[in-house]
Protein backbone atom coordinates (compact mmCIF):
# COMPACT_ATOMS: atom_id res chain seq x y z
CA UNK A 1 0.00 0.00 0.00
CA UNK A 2 1.71 3.13 -1.11
CA UNK A 3 1.40 6.22 0.91
CA UNK A 4 0.16 8.88 -1.42
CA UNK A 5 1.08 11.62 0.96
CA UNK A 6 4.83 11.51 0.28
CA UNK A 7 6.35 14.73 1.35
CA UNK A 8 8.03 16.95 -1.18
CA UNK A 9 11.27 16.18 0.60
CA UNK A 10 10.99 12.47 -0.04
CA UNK A 11 10.19 13.06 -3.66
CA UNK A 12 13.17 15.33 -4.11
CA UNK A 13 15.41 12.73 -2.52
CA UNK A 14 13.97 10.16 -4.88
CA UNK A 15 14.82 12.30 -7.91
CA UNK A 16 18.25 13.05 -6.55
CA UNK A 17 18.94 9.40 -5.97
CA UNK A 18 18.05 8.46 -9.52
CA UNK A 19 20.10 11.27 -11.01
CA UNK A 20 22.94 10.60 -8.66
CA UNK A 21 25.16 9.17 -11.32
CA UNK A 22 25.83 12.33 -13.14
CA UNK A 23 25.80 15.00 -10.55
CA UNK A 24 28.12 13.14 -8.20
CA UNK A 25 30.52 12.93 -11.09
CA UNK A 26 30.11 16.67 -11.71
CA UNK A 27 30.50 17.55 -8.04
CA UNK A 28 33.77 15.70 -7.90
CA UNK A 29 35.30 18.04 -10.48
CA UNK A 30 36.02 20.93 -8.08
CA UNK A 31 37.71 18.47 -5.74
CA UNK A 32 40.00 17.32 -8.53
CA UNK A 33 40.69 20.89 -9.55
CA UNK A 34 41.56 21.67 -5.96
CA UNK A 35 44.08 18.86 -5.87
CA UNK A 36 45.63 19.98 -9.10
CA UNK A 37 45.82 23.57 -7.96
CA UNK A 38 47.51 22.39 -4.78
CA UNK A 39 49.96 20.26 -6.76
CA UNK A 40 50.80 23.20 -9.02
CA UNK A 41 51.20 25.45 -5.98
CA UNK A 42 53.80 23.20 -4.40
CA UNK A 43 55.46 22.30 -7.65
CA UNK A 44 56.06 25.89 -8.64
CA UNK A 45 57.43 26.71 -5.23
CA UNK A 46 59.89 23.89 -5.60
CA UNK A 47 61.45 25.42 -8.69
CA UNK A 48 65.04 26.14 -7.77
CA UNK A 49 66.17 29.70 -7.50
CA UNK A 50 64.84 32.80 -5.85
CA UNK A 51 62.08 34.47 -7.81
CA UNK A 52 62.73 37.85 -6.28
CA UNK A 53 66.31 37.79 -7.41
CA UNK A 54 65.17 36.75 -10.80
CA UNK A 55 62.94 39.78 -11.05
CA UNK A 56 65.46 42.26 -9.78
CA UNK A 57 68.07 40.78 -12.03
CA UNK A 58 70.80 40.90 -9.45
CA UNK A 59 70.62 44.65 -9.03
CA UNK A 60 70.95 46.16 -5.64
CA UNK A 61 67.51 46.79 -4.38
CA UNK A 62 66.35 48.09 -1.03
CA UNK A 63 64.91 45.67 1.46
CA UNK A 64 61.59 47.43 1.34
CA UNK A 65 61.39 46.99 -2.41
CA UNK A 66 62.24 43.32 -2.02
CA UNK A 67 59.39 42.91 0.41
CA UNK A 68 57.10 44.65 -2.02
CA UNK A 69 58.09 42.33 -4.82
CA UNK A 70 57.71 39.38 -2.54
CA UNK A 71 54.23 40.46 -1.61
CA UNK A 72 53.24 40.95 -5.22
CA UNK A 73 54.37 37.43 -5.93
CA UNK A 74 52.35 36.16 -3.05
CA UNK A 75 55.36 34.85 -1.17
CA UNK A 76 54.85 36.53 2.19
CA UNK A 77 53.36 34.97 5.22
CA UNK A 78 53.06 31.35 6.22
CA UNK A 79 52.69 28.61 3.67
CA UNK A 80 49.09 28.18 4.68
CA UNK A 81 48.17 31.82 4.17
CA UNK A 82 50.02 31.83 0.88
CA UNK A 83 47.98 28.86 -0.19
CA UNK A 84 44.69 30.49 0.70
CA UNK A 85 45.72 33.63 -1.11
CA UNK A 86 46.74 31.55 -4.08
CA UNK A 87 43.44 29.70 -4.20
CA UNK A 88 41.57 32.96 -4.08
CA UNK A 89 43.63 34.24 -6.98
CA UNK A 90 43.08 31.13 -9.03
CA UNK A 91 39.35 31.22 -8.60
CA UNK A 92 39.18 34.90 -9.50
CA UNK A 93 41.52 34.40 -12.42
CA UNK A 94 44.21 36.67 -11.05
CA UNK A 95 47.21 34.84 -12.34
CA UNK A 96 49.58 37.72 -11.96
CA UNK A 97 52.02 39.05 -14.47
CA UNK A 98 54.71 37.25 -16.34
CA UNK A 99 58.07 37.51 -14.69
CA UNK A 100 59.73 37.88 -18.03
CA UNK A 101 57.78 40.51 -19.90
CA UNK A 102 55.41 41.77 -17.25
CA UNK A 103 52.34 41.04 -19.32
CA UNK A 104 49.25 39.74 -17.60
CA UNK A 105 49.36 35.97 -17.57
CA UNK A 106 45.64 35.58 -17.91
CA UNK A 107 45.59 38.18 -20.65
CA UNK A 108 48.11 36.27 -22.70
CA UNK A 109 46.59 32.87 -21.98
CA UNK A 110 43.08 33.94 -22.76
CA UNK A 111 44.26 35.27 -26.06
CA UNK A 112 46.22 32.17 -26.96
CA UNK A 113 43.73 29.68 -25.67
CA UNK A 114 41.27 29.92 -28.56
CA UNK A 115 44.01 29.33 -31.09
CA UNK A 116 45.14 26.20 -29.33
CA UNK A 117 41.58 25.01 -28.89
CA UNK A 118 40.85 25.65 -32.54
CA UNK A 119 43.76 23.51 -33.59
CA UNK A 120 42.99 20.73 -31.15
CA UNK A 121 39.30 20.60 -31.92
CA UNK A 122 39.81 20.51 -35.68
CA UNK A 123 42.33 17.71 -35.29
CA UNK A 124 40.08 15.75 -32.95
CA UNK A 125 37.04 16.08 -35.17
CA UNK A 126 38.95 14.89 -38.21
CA UNK A 127 40.62 12.09 -36.25
CA UNK A 128 37.28 10.90 -34.91
CA UNK A 129 35.61 11.02 -38.29
CA UNK A 130 38.49 9.14 -39.86
CA UNK A 131 38.40 6.55 -37.11
CA UNK A 132 34.72 5.86 -37.60
CA UNK A 133 35.09 5.61 -41.37
CA UNK A 134 38.25 3.52 -41.25
CA UNK A 135 36.94 1.32 -38.50
CA UNK A 136 33.75 0.52 -40.32
CA UNK A 137 35.62 -0.03 -43.57
CA UNK A 138 38.02 -2.45 -41.95
CA UNK A 139 35.22 -4.39 -40.30
CA UNK A 140 32.89 -4.47 -43.29
CA UNK A 141 35.58 -5.55 -45.75
CA UNK A 142 38.10 -7.39 -43.60
CA UNK A 143 40.02 -8.85 -46.49
CA UNK A 144 40.37 -5.77 -48.62
CA UNK A 145 43.64 -3.97 -49.18
CA UNK A 146 42.30 -1.12 -47.11
CA UNK A 147 41.94 -3.34 -44.07
CA UNK A 148 45.41 -4.73 -44.57
CA UNK A 149 46.83 -1.24 -44.36
CA UNK A 150 44.58 0.01 -41.59
CA UNK A 151 45.19 -2.73 -39.06
CA UNK A 152 48.98 -2.34 -38.92
CA UNK A 153 48.49 1.41 -38.94
CA UNK A 154 46.30 1.11 -35.89
CA UNK A 155 48.99 -0.96 -34.19
CA UNK A 156 51.44 1.91 -34.36
CA UNK A 157 49.32 3.69 -31.77
CA UNK A 158 51.38 6.12 -29.81
CA UNK A 159 54.62 5.20 -31.53
CA UNK A 160 54.73 7.82 -34.26
CA UNK A 161 56.62 10.86 -33.03
CA UNK A 162 54.64 13.91 -33.97
CA UNK A 163 57.61 16.20 -34.32
CA UNK A 164 59.29 13.81 -36.74
CA UNK A 165 56.15 13.83 -38.87
CA UNK A 166 56.07 17.59 -38.64
CA UNK A 167 59.61 18.15 -39.82
CA UNK A 168 59.13 15.53 -42.51
CA UNK A 169 56.03 17.37 -43.61
CA UNK A 170 57.88 20.64 -43.80
CA UNK A 171 60.71 19.01 -45.69
CA UNK A 172 58.45 17.37 -48.22
CA UNK A 173 55.55 19.70 -48.68
CA UNK A 174 57.21 23.00 -48.17
CA UNK A 175 60.84 22.91 -49.15
CA UNK A 176 60.68 20.13 -51.71
CA UNK A 177 57.32 20.37 -53.37
CA UNK A 178 56.37 23.90 -52.43
CA UNK A 179 52.77 22.82 -51.92
CA UNK A 180 52.23 24.38 -48.54
CA UNK A 181 53.24 27.63 -46.89
CA UNK A 182 56.26 28.06 -44.70
CA UNK A 183 56.03 27.27 -41.00
CA UNK A 184 55.82 30.89 -40.08
CA UNK A 185 52.75 31.04 -37.92
CA UNK A 186 49.05 30.84 -38.22
CA UNK A 187 48.75 32.97 -41.32
CA UNK A 188 50.98 34.76 -43.78
CA UNK A 189 52.93 37.47 -41.94
CA UNK A 190 51.92 40.06 -44.48
CA UNK A 191 48.27 39.87 -43.54
CA UNK A 192 46.55 41.90 -40.84
CA UNK A 193 44.53 40.13 -38.20
CA UNK A 194 40.76 40.51 -38.18
CA UNK A 195 38.83 42.23 -35.38
CA UNK A 196 38.24 39.87 -32.49
CA UNK A 197 34.67 38.68 -32.36
CA UNK A 198 34.98 35.19 -30.94
CA UNK A 199 38.71 34.98 -30.36
CA UNK A 200 38.93 32.05 -32.72
CA UNK A 201 40.99 33.18 -35.71
CA UNK A 202 39.12 31.09 -38.26
CA UNK A 203 35.72 32.24 -37.07
CA UNK A 204 36.85 35.83 -36.85
CA UNK A 205 38.00 35.68 -40.43
CA UNK A 206 34.60 34.33 -41.42
CA UNK A 207 32.78 37.02 -39.53
CA UNK A 208 34.88 39.69 -41.19
CA UNK A 209 34.29 38.16 -44.57
CA UNK A 210 38.04 38.06 -45.03
CA UNK A 211 38.48 35.18 -47.45
CA UNK A 212 42.18 35.84 -48.00
CA UNK A 213 42.88 35.49 -44.32
CA UNK A 214 40.63 32.49 -44.03
CA UNK A 215 42.46 30.78 -46.86
CA UNK A 216 45.82 31.64 -45.42
CA UNK A 217 44.92 30.23 -42.03
CA UNK A 218 43.58 27.06 -43.59
CA UNK A 219 46.70 26.61 -45.67
CA UNK A 220 48.87 27.13 -42.63
CA UNK A 221 46.81 24.70 -40.61
CA UNK A 222 46.99 21.85 -43.11
CA UNK A 223 50.32 20.50 -41.97
CA UNK A 224 49.85 20.98 -38.21
CA UNK A 225 46.44 19.33 -38.31
CA UNK A 226 47.66 16.56 -40.61
CA UNK A 227 50.54 15.82 -38.27
CA UNK A 228 48.25 15.59 -35.27
CA UNK A 229 45.72 13.48 -37.10
CA UNK A 230 48.20 11.03 -38.60
CA UNK A 231 50.12 10.64 -35.37
CA UNK A 232 47.20 10.21 -33.01
CA UNK A 233 44.36 8.61 -34.94
CA UNK A 234 45.87 5.13 -34.44
CA UNK A 235 45.25 5.46 -30.71
CA UNK A 236 41.54 5.78 -31.27
CA UNK A 237 41.43 3.43 -34.23
CA UNK A 238 43.06 0.58 -32.36
CA UNK A 239 40.53 0.72 -29.56
CA UNK A 240 37.63 1.16 -31.96
CA UNK A 241 38.72 -1.76 -34.14
CA UNK A 242 39.07 -4.04 -31.18
CA UNK A 243 35.72 -2.98 -29.78
CA UNK A 244 34.07 -3.45 -33.18
CA UNK A 245 35.45 -6.94 -33.50
CA UNK A 246 34.19 -7.84 -30.07
CA UNK A 247 30.82 -6.31 -30.83
CA UNK A 248 30.48 -8.21 -34.07
CA UNK A 249 31.15 -11.50 -32.31
CA UNK A 250 28.97 -10.73 -29.34
CA UNK A 251 25.92 -12.95 -28.84
CA UNK A 252 23.39 -10.10 -29.03
CA UNK A 253 24.70 -9.14 -32.45
CA UNK A 254 24.59 -12.71 -33.64
CA UNK A 255 21.07 -12.95 -32.45
CA UNK A 256 20.14 -9.85 -34.35
CA UNK A 257 21.62 -11.24 -37.52
CA UNK A 258 19.96 -14.59 -37.01
CA UNK A 259 16.67 -12.86 -36.37
CA UNK A 260 16.92 -11.29 -39.78
CA UNK A 261 17.61 -7.69 -38.94
CA UNK A 262 18.61 -5.44 -41.78
CA UNK A 263 22.26 -4.77 -42.47
CA UNK A 264 21.89 -1.21 -41.42
CA UNK A 265 20.29 -2.10 -38.08
CA UNK A 266 23.00 -4.58 -37.25
CA UNK A 267 25.69 -2.10 -38.18
CA UNK A 268 24.13 0.53 -35.99
CA UNK A 269 23.89 -1.82 -33.06
CA UNK A 270 27.48 -2.91 -33.50
CA UNK A 271 28.65 0.68 -33.50
CA UNK A 272 26.56 1.39 -30.42
CA UNK A 273 28.19 -1.52 -28.59
CA UNK A 274 31.65 -0.47 -29.62
CA UNK A 275 31.11 3.20 -28.88
CA UNK A 276 31.76 3.34 -25.10
CA UNK A 277 35.34 2.10 -25.27
CA UNK A 278 36.06 4.45 -28.12
CA UNK A 279 34.45 7.38 -26.34
CA UNK A 280 36.45 6.59 -23.23
CA UNK A 281 39.57 6.63 -25.35
CA UNK A 282 38.70 10.05 -26.68
CA UNK A 283 39.48 11.54 -23.31
CA UNK A 284 42.95 10.05 -23.43
CA UNK A 285 43.21 11.04 -27.07
CA UNK A 286 42.51 14.63 -26.14
CA UNK A 287 45.31 14.44 -23.60
CA UNK A 288 47.75 13.13 -26.17
CA UNK A 289 46.65 15.67 -28.73
CA UNK A 290 47.11 18.52 -26.33
CA UNK A 291 50.63 17.30 -25.80
CA UNK A 292 51.09 17.06 -29.53
CA UNK A 293 49.73 20.57 -29.94
CA UNK A 294 52.54 21.88 -27.76
CA UNK A 295 55.05 20.36 -30.13
CA UNK A 296 53.24 21.44 -33.25
CA UNK A 297 52.93 25.03 -32.07
CA UNK A 298 56.65 25.13 -31.50
CA UNK A 299 57.41 23.68 -34.89
CA UNK A 300 55.03 25.76 -36.94
CA UNK A 301 55.40 28.92 -34.87
CA UNK A 302 51.70 29.06 -34.05
CA UNK A 303 51.15 31.44 -31.14
CA UNK A 304 49.13 29.23 -28.87
CA UNK A 305 49.19 28.11 -25.26
CA UNK A 306 51.75 25.40 -25.81
CA UNK A 307 54.38 27.81 -26.97
CA UNK A 308 53.64 29.97 -23.95
CA UNK A 309 54.20 27.07 -21.59
CA UNK A 310 57.47 25.99 -23.15
CA UNK A 311 58.82 29.50 -22.98
CA UNK A 312 57.73 29.76 -19.38
CA UNK A 313 59.67 26.63 -18.48
CA UNK A 314 62.73 27.76 -20.36
CA UNK A 315 62.85 31.11 -18.65
CA UNK A 316 61.72 29.88 -15.22
CA UNK A 317 58.80 32.25 -15.42
CA UNK A 318 56.96 31.01 -12.37
CA UNK A 319 53.78 33.01 -12.63
CA UNK A 320 53.35 32.22 -16.30
CA UNK A 321 54.05 28.56 -15.66
CA UNK A 322 51.56 28.49 -12.81
CA UNK A 323 48.82 29.98 -14.95
CA UNK A 324 49.64 27.68 -17.84
CA UNK A 325 49.60 24.51 -15.75
CA UNK A 326 46.35 25.37 -14.03
CA UNK A 327 44.69 26.18 -17.31
CA UNK A 328 45.83 22.97 -18.96
CA UNK A 329 44.82 20.91 -15.95
CA UNK A 330 41.38 22.54 -15.91
CA UNK A 331 40.82 21.92 -19.59
CA UNK A 332 41.94 18.30 -19.29
CA UNK A 333 39.70 17.65 -16.31
CA UNK A 334 36.69 19.27 -17.94
CA UNK A 335 37.19 17.24 -21.10
CA UNK A 336 37.45 14.08 -19.04
CA UNK A 337 34.28 14.97 -17.25
CA UNK A 338 32.43 15.47 -20.51
CA UNK A 339 33.76 12.20 -21.90
CA UNK A 340 32.76 10.36 -18.73
CA UNK A 341 29.28 11.82 -18.78
CA UNK A 342 28.75 10.99 -22.44
CA UNK A 343 29.89 7.47 -21.79
CA UNK A 344 27.61 7.13 -18.81
CA UNK A 345 24.75 8.34 -20.95
CA UNK A 346 25.22 5.83 -23.75
CA UNK A 347 26.15 2.91 -21.54
CA UNK A 348 24.00 2.78 -18.41
CA UNK A 349 26.14 0.05 -16.93
CA UNK A 350 28.89 2.57 -16.35
CA UNK A 351 26.85 4.73 -14.05
CA UNK A 352 28.20 4.30 -10.55
CA UNK A 353 26.01 3.56 -7.58
CA UNK A 354 22.81 3.19 -9.49
CA UNK A 355 20.65 0.56 -7.81
CA UNK A 356 20.04 -2.17 -10.32
CA UNK A 357 16.36 -2.57 -9.69
CA UNK A 358 14.77 -5.63 -11.17
CA UNK A 359 17.55 -7.77 -12.49
CA UNK A 360 19.74 -9.82 -10.14
Amino acid sequence: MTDHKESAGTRTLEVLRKQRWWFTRVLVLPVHLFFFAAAVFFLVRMIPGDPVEQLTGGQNVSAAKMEQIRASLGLTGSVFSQFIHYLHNVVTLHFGNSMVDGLSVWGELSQRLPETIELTVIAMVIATALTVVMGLAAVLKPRSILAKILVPYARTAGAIPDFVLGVLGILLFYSTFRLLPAPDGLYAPTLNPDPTVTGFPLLDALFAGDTVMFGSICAHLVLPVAVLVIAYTPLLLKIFLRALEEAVDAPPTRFRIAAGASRKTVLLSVVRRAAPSAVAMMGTLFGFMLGGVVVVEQLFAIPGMGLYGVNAVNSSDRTALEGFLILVATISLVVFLIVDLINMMIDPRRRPGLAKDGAS
Partner: protein
Amino acid sequence: MPNDNALAIVEVENVTKEFGNTRAHRKRRPAVDGVSLTIDHATRLGIVGESGSGKSTLSRLIVGLETPTSGRVAYRGLNVHLMTPSVMREFRKNVQMISQDTSSSFDPTRTLRDSVRRPAQELLGVDKSTADALVDETLAMVGIAPWMVDRKPGDVSGGQRQRIAIARSLVVKPALILCDEVVSALDVSVQGTVLNLLKTYCDENQAGLIFVSHGLPATAFVSKDIVVMRNGVIVEQGPVDDVIHHSKNLYTKTLIDAYKGSARPLISKPVARSPLLEEAAR
Protein backbone atom coordinates in the same frame (compact mmCIF):
# COMPACT_ATOMS: atom_id res chain seq x y z
CA MET B 1 41.94 -27.53 25.05
CA PRO B 2 38.18 -27.94 24.81
CA ASN B 3 37.02 -31.53 24.89
CA ASP B 4 36.19 -33.25 21.68
CA ASN B 5 33.02 -35.03 20.86
CA ALA B 6 30.36 -33.45 22.98
CA LEU B 7 30.89 -29.83 22.09
CA ALA B 8 29.87 -28.23 18.85
CA ILE B 9 32.69 -27.43 16.46
CA VAL B 10 31.03 -24.52 14.75
CA GLU B 11 28.00 -22.58 15.83
CA VAL B 12 26.24 -20.31 13.40
CA GLU B 13 24.25 -17.86 15.50
CA ASN B 14 21.54 -15.90 13.73
CA VAL B 15 23.85 -14.89 10.95
CA THR B 16 22.87 -12.42 8.26
CA LYS B 17 25.04 -11.37 5.36
CA GLU B 18 24.32 -8.44 3.10
CA PHE B 19 26.53 -7.50 0.22
CA GLY B 20 27.40 -4.07 -1.03
CA ASN B 21 28.08 -1.02 1.05
CA THR B 22 25.96 1.69 -0.48
CA ARG B 23 22.51 2.34 0.76
CA ALA B 24 21.07 1.45 -2.62
CA HIS B 25 22.56 -2.02 -2.51
CA ARG B 26 21.46 -2.64 1.05
CA LYS B 27 17.86 -2.40 -0.02
CA ARG B 28 18.29 -5.72 -1.76
CA ARG B 29 17.67 -9.00 -0.07
CA PRO B 30 20.50 -10.25 2.10
CA ALA B 31 22.29 -13.28 0.76
CA VAL B 32 21.89 -15.05 4.06
CA ASP B 33 19.17 -14.02 6.46
CA GLY B 34 19.06 -15.05 10.08
CA VAL B 35 20.47 -18.55 9.76
CA SER B 36 21.41 -20.62 12.79
CA LEU B 37 23.11 -23.99 12.81
CA THR B 38 25.04 -26.19 15.18
CA ILE B 39 27.76 -28.37 13.70
CA ASP B 40 29.66 -31.10 15.53
CA HIS B 41 31.64 -34.24 14.78
CA ALA B 42 28.57 -36.30 14.11
CA THR B 43 27.09 -33.84 11.62
CA ARG B 44 26.24 -35.21 8.24
CA LEU B 45 24.40 -32.22 6.90
CA GLY B 46 23.23 -31.57 3.40
CA ILE B 47 22.37 -28.04 2.31
CA VAL B 48 20.30 -27.80 -0.82
CA GLY B 49 18.64 -25.02 -2.72
CA GLU B 50 18.57 -23.32 -6.08
CA SER B 51 21.25 -20.99 -7.36
CA GLY B 52 21.04 -17.78 -5.42
CA SER B 53 19.54 -19.42 -2.36
CA GLY B 54 22.54 -18.42 -0.29
CA LYS B 55 24.09 -21.83 0.24
CA SER B 56 27.51 -20.84 -1.07
CA THR B 57 27.51 -17.69 1.02
CA LEU B 58 26.54 -19.72 4.03
CA SER B 59 29.43 -22.12 3.39
CA ARG B 60 31.84 -19.23 3.18
CA LEU B 61 30.49 -17.80 6.39
CA ILE B 62 30.92 -21.10 8.19
CA VAL B 63 34.57 -21.38 7.20
CA GLY B 64 35.29 -17.75 7.94
CA LEU B 65 35.85 -16.46 4.42
CA GLU B 66 33.04 -13.94 4.83
CA THR B 67 32.21 -11.75 7.78
CA PRO B 68 28.59 -11.72 8.93
CA THR B 69 26.78 -8.41 8.76
CA SER B 70 25.01 -9.41 11.96
CA GLY B 71 25.12 -12.44 14.18
CA ARG B 72 28.26 -14.46 14.68
CA VAL B 73 30.03 -17.61 13.69
CA ALA B 74 31.78 -19.30 16.59
CA TYR B 75 34.40 -21.99 16.66
CA ARG B 76 34.40 -23.83 19.92
CA GLY B 77 32.81 -20.81 21.48
CA LEU B 78 35.14 -18.20 20.05
CA ASN B 79 34.02 -15.69 17.46
CA VAL B 80 35.78 -16.59 14.23
CA HIS B 81 36.37 -12.99 13.26
CA LEU B 82 37.90 -11.95 16.53
CA MET B 83 40.46 -14.71 16.80
CA THR B 84 44.14 -14.39 17.48
CA PRO B 85 46.40 -15.81 14.80
CA SER B 86 47.20 -18.99 16.73
CA VAL B 87 43.57 -19.81 17.39
CA MET B 88 42.84 -18.98 13.76
CA ARG B 89 45.42 -21.57 12.75
CA GLU B 90 43.67 -24.18 14.86
CA PHE B 91 40.35 -23.17 13.37
CA ARG B 92 41.62 -23.50 9.83
CA LYS B 93 43.26 -26.81 10.59
CA ASN B 94 39.99 -28.18 11.82
CA VAL B 95 37.55 -26.58 9.42
CA GLN B 96 38.27 -27.04 5.75
CA MET B 97 36.24 -26.28 2.66
CA ILE B 98 36.46 -27.93 -0.73
CA SER B 99 35.03 -25.95 -3.63
CA GLN B 100 33.90 -26.88 -7.06
CA ASP B 101 36.85 -27.00 -9.37
CA THR B 102 36.32 -24.03 -11.62
CA SER B 103 39.77 -24.66 -13.01
CA SER B 104 41.13 -21.88 -10.83
CA SER B 105 41.29 -23.74 -7.55
CA PHE B 106 45.06 -24.03 -7.82
CA ASP B 107 47.65 -21.32 -8.40
CA PRO B 108 48.67 -21.77 -12.03
CA THR B 109 52.19 -20.57 -11.33
CA ARG B 110 52.96 -23.24 -8.75
CA THR B 111 53.07 -27.01 -8.82
CA LEU B 112 50.15 -28.96 -7.40
CA ARG B 113 52.42 -30.44 -4.77
CA ASP B 114 53.27 -26.96 -3.55
CA SER B 115 49.58 -26.16 -3.18
CA VAL B 116 48.72 -29.43 -1.45
CA ARG B 117 51.67 -29.10 0.87
CA ARG B 118 50.85 -25.56 1.89
CA PRO B 119 48.13 -26.27 4.51
CA ALA B 120 50.38 -28.78 6.25
CA GLN B 121 53.26 -26.31 6.35
CA GLU B 122 51.17 -23.38 7.54
CA LEU B 123 48.64 -25.02 9.82
CA LEU B 124 50.58 -27.95 11.23
CA GLY B 125 53.89 -26.13 11.35
CA VAL B 126 55.83 -29.05 9.92
CA ASP B 127 58.80 -28.79 7.63
CA LYS B 128 58.75 -29.53 3.94
CA SER B 129 59.77 -33.19 4.03
CA THR B 130 57.28 -34.11 6.74
CA ALA B 131 54.64 -32.25 4.80
CA ASP B 132 55.61 -34.18 1.68
CA ALA B 133 55.11 -37.44 3.50
CA LEU B 134 51.66 -36.34 4.64
CA VAL B 135 50.85 -35.25 1.12
CA ASP B 136 51.80 -38.63 -0.33
CA GLU B 137 49.73 -40.37 2.33
CA THR B 138 46.67 -38.29 1.56
CA LEU B 139 47.11 -38.67 -2.18
CA ALA B 140 47.03 -42.42 -1.76
CA MET B 141 43.68 -41.97 -0.03
CA VAL B 142 42.20 -40.19 -3.03
CA GLY B 143 43.84 -42.38 -5.58
CA ILE B 144 46.30 -39.98 -7.12
CA ALA B 145 49.86 -41.05 -7.86
CA PRO B 146 52.52 -38.95 -6.09
CA TRP B 147 54.35 -38.01 -9.27
CA MET B 148 51.21 -36.46 -10.72
CA VAL B 149 51.29 -33.54 -8.33
CA ASP B 150 54.73 -32.48 -9.43
CA ARG B 151 52.98 -30.95 -12.40
CA LYS B 152 51.16 -27.69 -12.80
CA PRO B 153 47.36 -27.51 -12.47
CA GLY B 154 46.79 -27.17 -16.18
CA ASP B 155 48.46 -30.50 -16.86
CA VAL B 156 45.92 -32.71 -15.13
CA SER B 157 42.28 -33.36 -15.87
CA GLY B 158 39.36 -31.74 -14.07
CA GLY B 159 38.45 -34.89 -12.24
CA GLN B 160 42.00 -35.39 -11.08
CA ARG B 161 42.19 -31.78 -9.97
CA GLN B 162 39.06 -32.20 -7.92
CA ARG B 163 40.52 -35.20 -6.14
CA ILE B 164 43.77 -33.35 -5.55
CA ALA B 165 41.73 -30.48 -4.12
CA ILE B 166 40.10 -32.90 -1.73
CA ALA B 167 43.54 -34.17 -0.77
CA ARG B 168 44.63 -30.62 -0.09
CA SER B 169 41.86 -30.21 2.42
CA LEU B 170 42.30 -33.60 4.02
CA VAL B 171 46.04 -33.39 4.49
CA VAL B 172 45.61 -31.54 7.79
CA LYS B 173 43.03 -34.03 9.06
CA PRO B 174 40.25 -31.52 9.70
CA ALA B 175 37.44 -32.13 12.14
CA LEU B 176 34.88 -30.60 9.78
CA ILE B 177 34.76 -30.73 6.02
CA LEU B 178 32.52 -28.50 4.00
CA CYS B 179 31.95 -29.53 0.39
CA ASP B 180 30.56 -26.88 -1.92
CA GLU B 181 29.34 -28.43 -5.16
CA VAL B 182 32.32 -30.74 -5.25
CA VAL B 183 30.77 -33.34 -7.48
CA SER B 184 28.57 -31.19 -9.72
CA ALA B 185 31.14 -30.95 -12.48
CA LEU B 186 32.35 -34.51 -12.35
CA ASP B 187 31.41 -37.50 -14.45
CA VAL B 188 28.72 -39.57 -12.81
CA SER B 189 31.07 -42.53 -12.46
CA VAL B 190 33.63 -40.42 -10.64
CA GLN B 191 30.99 -38.82 -8.45
CA GLY B 192 30.37 -42.08 -6.69
CA THR B 193 34.03 -42.62 -5.94
CA VAL B 194 34.41 -39.17 -4.52
CA LEU B 195 31.30 -39.35 -2.37
CA ASN B 196 32.33 -42.68 -0.93
CA LEU B 197 35.76 -41.30 -0.23
CA LEU B 198 34.34 -38.38 1.71
CA LYS B 199 31.95 -40.55 3.65
CA THR B 200 34.70 -43.00 4.56
CA TYR B 201 37.05 -40.30 5.68
CA CYS B 202 34.48 -38.71 7.92
CA ASP B 203 33.42 -42.03 9.41
CA GLU B 204 36.97 -43.15 10.10
CA ASN B 205 38.20 -39.84 11.48
CA GLN B 206 35.13 -38.71 13.38
CA ALA B 207 34.83 -35.64 11.26
CA GLY B 208 31.73 -33.64 10.54
CA LEU B 209 30.57 -33.25 6.95
CA ILE B 210 28.53 -30.52 5.37
CA PHE B 211 27.55 -31.15 1.80
CA VAL B 212 26.27 -28.21 -0.20
CA SER B 213 24.75 -28.97 -3.55
CA HIS B 214 21.90 -28.24 -5.86
CA GLY B 215 21.75 -31.91 -6.75
CA LEU B 216 19.54 -33.93 -4.45
CA PRO B 217 20.65 -37.52 -5.09
CA ALA B 218 24.28 -36.89 -4.18
CA THR B 219 23.28 -34.91 -1.13
CA ALA B 220 20.89 -37.56 0.02
CA PHE B 221 23.58 -40.17 -0.25
CA VAL B 222 26.04 -38.59 2.17
CA SER B 223 23.72 -36.79 4.55
CA LYS B 224 21.79 -37.73 7.63
CA ASP B 225 20.08 -34.36 7.89
CA ILE B 226 19.10 -31.89 5.24
CA VAL B 227 18.57 -28.14 5.24
CA VAL B 228 16.62 -26.54 2.42
CA MET B 229 17.47 -22.94 1.66
CA ARG B 230 15.62 -20.36 -0.32
CA ASN B 231 16.40 -16.66 -0.67
CA GLY B 232 18.86 -16.79 2.17
CA VAL B 233 16.49 -18.39 4.66
CA ILE B 234 16.17 -21.95 5.86
CA VAL B 235 12.71 -23.08 4.83
CA GLU B 236 12.99 -26.58 6.13
CA GLN B 237 15.37 -28.81 8.00
CA GLY B 238 15.29 -32.30 9.38
CA PRO B 239 16.40 -35.90 8.82
CA VAL B 240 16.97 -36.79 5.20
CA ASP B 241 14.17 -39.26 4.98
CA ASP B 242 11.60 -36.91 6.45
CA VAL B 243 12.48 -33.98 4.25
CA ILE B 244 12.65 -35.93 1.04
CA HIS B 245 9.71 -38.23 1.46
CA HIS B 246 7.45 -36.55 3.97
CA SER B 247 7.96 -32.86 3.49
CA LYS B 248 5.11 -30.54 4.32
CA ASN B 249 6.76 -27.51 2.75
CA LEU B 250 5.49 -26.55 -0.68
CA TYR B 251 8.84 -25.30 -1.93
CA THR B 252 10.68 -28.41 -0.79
CA LYS B 253 8.11 -30.62 -2.42
CA THR B 254 8.48 -28.80 -5.75
CA LEU B 255 12.23 -29.18 -5.51
CA ILE B 256 12.01 -32.89 -4.88
CA ASP B 257 9.41 -33.50 -7.50
CA ALA B 258 11.86 -32.17 -10.03
CA TYR B 259 14.10 -35.10 -9.19
CA LYS B 260 11.52 -37.80 -8.84
CA GLY B 261 11.04 -37.80 -12.57
CA SER B 262 14.57 -38.95 -13.30
CA ALA B 263 15.02 -42.25 -11.57
CA ARG B 264 18.74 -42.19 -12.22
CA PRO B 265 20.66 -44.26 -9.70
CA LEU B 266 23.42 -42.48 -7.91
CA ILE B 267 26.18 -44.95 -8.49
CA SER B 268 25.95 -45.73 -12.13
CA LYS B 269 26.36 -49.12 -13.68
CA PRO B 270 29.59 -49.66 -15.59
CA VAL B 271 29.80 -47.34 -18.55
CA ALA B 272 28.36 -49.04 -21.61
CA ARG B 273 31.04 -50.03 -24.06
CA SER B 274 30.88 -48.96 -27.63
CA PRO B 275 29.27 -51.68 -29.78
CA LEU B 276 32.20 -51.38 -32.15
CA LEU B 277 34.65 -52.22 -29.38
CA GLU B 278 32.51 -55.19 -28.39
CA GLU B 279 32.57 -56.31 -32.00
CA ALA B 280 36.34 -56.00 -32.22
CA ALA B 281 36.86 -57.86 -28.98
CA ARG B 282 35.14 -60.96 -30.31
